[in-house]
């Protein structure tokens, strides 16, 4: 827990981080892939917030979207399919000084990772989660995901999917300890950035579902919404995001939604026609697990040694010794 604070401070005084400071490898997503827009929004956020790259960690699972950390010039942890959240929790638990982001996909989060997702919401650690929801398995080349629209064909559902998709926002809102839920779309970059910024600023587990286009395997899924601004519903509030005049001109469907209203949030979330975009729910008062469990002081070797001796005392006997007979 040793923070070389001096160093950060020096850095801040010396120079400013530019967008380039956050750029890692050249992204290898398909042309037109919505992941590119999300990366751009996040890099902008990092720059705006001047996050020290060495103090920032992007944790991901496996999937197209989960390649994200390679494209950032921060610390990155590209782990296992479905397991990004518990890894991120482990990091945050002992290193609250780090900015921890999770990048996950709809399969990664809502299929194999379901249990971790639900419980991550419950732990409510101060982590920002971006769930790239393209409604398909991209990396493994076109299988249905739990958010795939009913009836779409994929390699495992050549006759069309059988089930209605789950709605990750509604599911999140069903967890008692939920503290921040938002929805964004890759094709309104300004809102995307602002929503991610809100999520980042929220202290607690912030879950952002980002509808993301996958031209490779599920082209046209969002065409209606992309082409028809009136199919969108922009949420705004002083405790949420604001809508710029330019955007307001295009997207005339708007609602002033107070993110503390969970029931209304549930109703809004329950439809995608219109598709809500904005902060649906926020409860700044929900305690964070890492705070509830943080060491109450700095444990120096001497304190530790003393505590161990104390434990030994509990279990120590002093045999009377030598044979008497």
């Amino acid at each position, binding site marked *: 827990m040793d923070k070389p604070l001096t160093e950060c401070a020096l850095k801040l005084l010396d120079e400013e981080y530019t967008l380039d400071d956050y750029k890692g490898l050249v992204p290898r997503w398909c042309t037109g892939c919505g992941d590119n827009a999300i990366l751009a929004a996040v890099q902008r956020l990092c720059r705006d917030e001047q996050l020290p790259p060495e103090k920032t960690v992007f944790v991901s699972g496996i999937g197209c979207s989960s390649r994200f950390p390679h494209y950032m010039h921060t610390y990155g942890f590209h782990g296992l399919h479905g397991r990004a959240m*518990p890894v991120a929790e482990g990091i945050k638990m002992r290193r609250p000084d780090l900015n921890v982001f999770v990048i996950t996909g709809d399969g990664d989060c809502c299929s194999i990772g379901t249990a971790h997702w639900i419980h991550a919401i419950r732990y409510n650690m101060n982590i920002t989660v971006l769930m790239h929801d393209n409604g398909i398995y991209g990396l493994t080349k076109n299988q249905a995901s739990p958010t795939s629209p009913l009836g779409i064909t994929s390699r495992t559902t050549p006759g069309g999917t059988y089930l209605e998709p789950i709605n990750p926002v509604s599911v999140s809102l069903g967890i008692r300890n939920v503290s921040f839920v938002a929805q964004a779309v890759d094709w309104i970059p300004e809102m995307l950035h602002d929503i991610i910024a809100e999520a980042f600023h929220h202290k607690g587990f912030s879950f952002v579902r980002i509808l993301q286009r996958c031209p490779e395997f599920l082209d046209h899924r969002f065409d209606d919404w992309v082409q028809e601004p009136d199919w969108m519903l922009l949420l705004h509030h002083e405790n949420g995001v604001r809508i710029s005049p330019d955007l307001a001109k295009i997207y005339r469907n708007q609602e002033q939604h107070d993110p503390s209203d969970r029931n209304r949030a549930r109703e809004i979330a329950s439809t995608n026609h219109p598709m809500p975009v904005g902060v649906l729910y926020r409860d700044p008062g929900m305690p964070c697990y890492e705070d509830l469990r943080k060491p109450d002081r700095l444990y120096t070797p001497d304190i530790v040694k003393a505590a161990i001796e104390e434990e030994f005392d509990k279990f120590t006997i002093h045999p009377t010794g030598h044979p*008497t007979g």
Partner: protein
Amino acid sequence: MSTQALKKEHAKKQARRPAAKKAKGPSRPDKSRRGQSGPEDTPVVTMKEHIIEIVSDSGEGAQRCGQAFGAIAARMGNGVWTAEIIPAEIQPPARSAAGASGNRIRVASHRVTNWGDEDDLIVAFNEQVLLSRLEEGELRPGCIVLLEDKWRTDNDPEIVAAFTETVERLLVDDCRVYEIPMETECLKYVPDPRRGKNMFVLGLLCGIYSLDLDIAREQIAFAFAKKDQAIIDNNILLLEAGHDWAETNLDIKFRIPPSDVSKPQIVVNGNIALGLGVMASGMEVCAMYPITPATSASHYLSEVFQNVGGVVHQAEDEIAACAFAIGSSYAGKCAVTITSGPGFALKQETIGLAVMTEIPLVVVNVQRGGPSTGLPTKVEQGDLLFACFGGHGDNPKVVMAPSDIEDCFYSMITARKIAEAFNMVVVVLSDASLASSQQPFPRPNVSEDWLAPPVDQSAVPEGAMPYDWDSRTGLARRFIPGQPNGMHCLTGLAHDRRSRVAYDPDINQEGILHRSRKLAAFQKTLKAPDVFGGDEGDLLIVGWGGTRGAIEEAIERLRADGHKVSSLHLTFLQPMPPGIKEVLERFDRVMTVESNWSDAADDDIIDEDNRRYSELAWLLRARYLVDIDCWSEVRGQPIKPGAIVRAIRERLQRKGS
């Protein structure tokens, strides 16, 4: 009522107590055993050791009694090993075999390393729990039985019949039975004898084994330290009552002279020892999901870990627990995850991630009976090959196994050090027997060296690479978040020295080479293990893990009989230390003794082409190409030294003929 007042009351009541009972049993020439002399002048028989068991229905406190008895003996300087007898159900019906709950305590004049063979003396709160022990063959012929007598006069004729029948049977089986009015006596002091009988029994045992009552009182005060003084007083009263009753009424009295141990000792079971070890290792995160028989280690840590700044995280499942530990290790100090077989199976993929990314990690597997849910509370060493070869692809990791309670403690310190020195996964295989057995060990001198250094946040030198493997050892500096210039993306995909995803054949080969090489480099730091017994001979027994005490005791007995047998016990199973081949070659034959499955060589359908060997035997055969036989049991219990002696005699004869 004050203790003094209680004592007086007690003294009064003594006057009214029934006449002493004598043991029912086969009459024998030996005076003390026939109990012909009056109780008051019972001579003290000095013994080298005794195995004592206390069994009751679950909830009647036999466990507590047994543990206290062991602790008192240990305080007196005796060698002691206590083992739990765990009921199969949470709240089994009263008076049922499945409910037998208690403790076995082996007390000796020398250091005790295992639970021994059969009971010399058993105390039972009812005849059904006793029966279960009898049927499992745990009573040696001539065993002394102290049995609650109230069932003989129960209102339910079936109970009376069952009781009488059992006593008959015990007599036929050559036991010496004493029926003791436990409840009647306790009722003199307490209203609810179910809460207290155990202390009365403790007193009985103190009397029988000539234990110091002052020490016993101290132990009670210590064990109930968290309770009201009134409870402590009450318990002491019952203790004294039991003691006096034994002195007055029983014709048996033993003394087991203490050993010369006089240094302070720690008395804990293996799981508490693990927990203490975790604290002392400097690890600060233990991520777990409850599973028997591993959980009690986490229970203990949950109580005290915060005193060293640590945290126990109960995750939603074992996969999450392992991933959490990995995240925590990655971001700072090595973390530990504790589980048992089923959880260990679930963690395989996650463990593989730590191997691939070279994140230090300690994984404790407190083995239980398998496969599948198997025997959750019972003893087995069935996960060795799984630990060595688990995970898809090449998964080099260290596998080690503590062999006694003290080892459980130190293994955590060692494991953490190896994990961080080599950026490796270290799997520690404990087992259900170590987990719940107590054996005193010398109080360690806490050393600052044990603790992990603070999280290194110094800048990474310009140009350094996160997998800058040393070509000889495979080692590389670990880049920890927060370290300036260290930014890189860790990945479970094949990667180059810069941690970039790479599918190139040479790079893949290079990565696997260096991860494997770390194991070889670590192996070079190991020392050849010592042989127990003679340096050469007819037969070498090889073992690992919690069977050490039983094996070495068997070897001692056989050597005392003139057999040229020795044993070798391995702490490191992967990699194995140098020098083993040389040892194996000095013996005519080699056999492992293990608590896991092996097909019997003389089985009709079994031949050399299909025989399934015990796990260590398999490892040794593959590495050293020596024809290593095995003898094993999967009886859910610690192997007894006597069983090993029999097995070895049988092998010596079979092949020796």
